[in-house]
């Protein structure tokens, strides 16, 4: 049976392992960067605020839809959409934080799971109602559509301009955030507020403001990630459910004590995923999941935890 494909595969001069190594690496990095931006807000709410916000993907989806619909219906340029994709979900996140999320900080994690899954369901049905269940397809501006190729043979490096754009933007964001965390006291004040709200307030930390701003920034980042990812990951109402696992993996593997952790985790996973699919397509997502299990068994706190007092 099926003699031809089997034979054909056997005869195929095994895909030169190095054939596209650089290109693959590049693709993996771009994919990883995207995962990173998408997961970053979750790393903050879950890692720093200890709030299990599974609705994170819904904010990302909001950013994606804002961008796609603005571009499709109102012809707003892509670059103008991006800040809006940040601002919209950030505002939404801020409003929801004030109204719904705040009373939940002190509830058990399982209640938070229930609540945020509920929000996801609402968001999924809502997106379906307002934008339809079809895949939204985004038309990138011309200058992002091209592709640059260098070298040839084993060392050819092909870079899609859009992926290049993602890498550059995400790198800039990472540097900016790192600055925010390292140079401002915001990070430690946030963690202090999470550790003990009552005492933190008594020592002069405006807990509500810290939480509000953190949550809004996290949601905004998710929205931005959603806008950037709509092109590569596709965008339909099931987005928040479909990618929840990916965000969680990044956060769990990266640990939550810094932003370098999730960044490296996202890059690792992005590259492993792309390379895995290239070299062993049969095993699909197997590689990523196994990698995650192995890493977590080896370092149960995540790859890059801060070992307080060890240095």
């Amino acid at each position: 049976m099926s003699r031809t494909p089997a034979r054909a595969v056997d005869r195929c001069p095994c895909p030169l392992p190095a054939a596209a190594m650089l290109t693959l690496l590049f693709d993996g990095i771009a994919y990883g960067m995207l995962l990173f931006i998408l997961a970053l807000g979750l790393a903050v709410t879950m890692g720093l605020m200890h709030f299990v916000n599974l609705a994170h993907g819904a904010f990302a989806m909001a950013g994606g839809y804002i961008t796609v619909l603005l571009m499709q219906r109102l012809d707003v340029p892509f670059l103008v959409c991006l800040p809006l994709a940040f601002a919209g979900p950030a505002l939404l996140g801020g409003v929801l934080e004030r109204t719904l999320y705040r009373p939940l900080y002190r509830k058990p994690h399982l209640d938070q799971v229930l609540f945020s899954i509920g929000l996801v369901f609402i968001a999924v049905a809502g997106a379906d109602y307002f934008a339809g269940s079809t895949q939204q397809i985004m038309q990138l501006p011309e200058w992002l559509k091209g592709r640059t190729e260098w070298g040839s043979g084993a060392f050819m490096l092909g870079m899609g301009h859009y992926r290049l754009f993602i890498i550059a933007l995400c790198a800039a964001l990472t540097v900016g955030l790192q600055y925010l965390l390292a140079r401002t006291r915001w990070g430690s004040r946030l963690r202090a507020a999470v550790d003990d709200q009552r005492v933190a307030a008594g020592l002069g930390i405006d807990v509500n403001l810290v939480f509000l701003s953190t949550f809004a920034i996290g949601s905004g980042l998710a929205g931005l990630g959603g806008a950037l990812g709509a092109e590569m990951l596709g965008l339909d109402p099931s987005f928040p459910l479909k990618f929840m696992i990916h965000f969680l993996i990044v956060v769990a593997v990266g640990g939550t004590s810094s932003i370098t952790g999730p960044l490296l985790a996202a890059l690792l996973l992005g590259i492993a995923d792309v390379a895995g699919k290239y070299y062993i397509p049969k095993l699909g997502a197997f590689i990523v999941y196994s990698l995650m299990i192995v890493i977590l068994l080896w370092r149960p706190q995540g790859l890059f935890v801060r070992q307080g007092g060890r240095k």
Partner: protein
Amino acid sequence: MTQTAAQPPTVLATRGLGKRFGGISATCDVTLELKKGARHALIGPNGAGKTTLINLLTGVLAPSEGTIVLDGQDITRLAPHQRVRRGMVRTFQINQLFDSLTPQETLALAVAQQQGLGGQWWRPLGARRAVMQRCEQLLEQFQLTSVMAQETRVLAYGKRRLLEIALALACAPRVLLLDEPVAGVPAGEREELLQTVAALPADVSVLLIEHDMDLVFRFASRMTVLVNGAVLTEGDPDSIARDPRVQAVYLGAAEQESAHA
């Protein structure tokens, strides 16, 4: 041979015990002996490594070096629960309780575990007479009967502290390690609490950590002073109180008087 009658045998001993956290030696080269039936106090400045030492003895932390010997057997590598099975039990400086269980459940569970029933699943816990009797006794002794059916998390601090100590006794210790057992207990009631401990059977050895010198000097028949993770000196209360080094690093000037008061 002849000495055994005069001097009780050693139950617990450490040899060259050390623990490093990164660059810091929290415990270094501690050699300590606890005799059978001893009422032994461990004192030392804050951060001297007293709690760390207890954590090493009970297996919460693994030592960087050295050995721990219980009843002549090396237990350095045993898991915490195995040490409890051999009779070494502790309390915690900060309460460690089962918040969603009631005092009754907490104690019954500990007694059942101590009687080797912890793995049984076919008979309800409350149906075991031997367990429930011992449990009632403990509740009575620590004045917890009135709150025995309330969740531990809602109990007043004082009751929680009592439960912390009752829980240790429920494990039928032969060696009891107490880490600041009366912290947070009002001055008036501290004495009473320690009395309960002092009244344990004569073959139970007790190691007490406490900063309230009034109590310590009244309770202990032997004392070890720990400084910077190492043993500074060991001796009977009088000699410790008079030791100028101990005064310099720990007691200060005022306490010296009160020790003799």
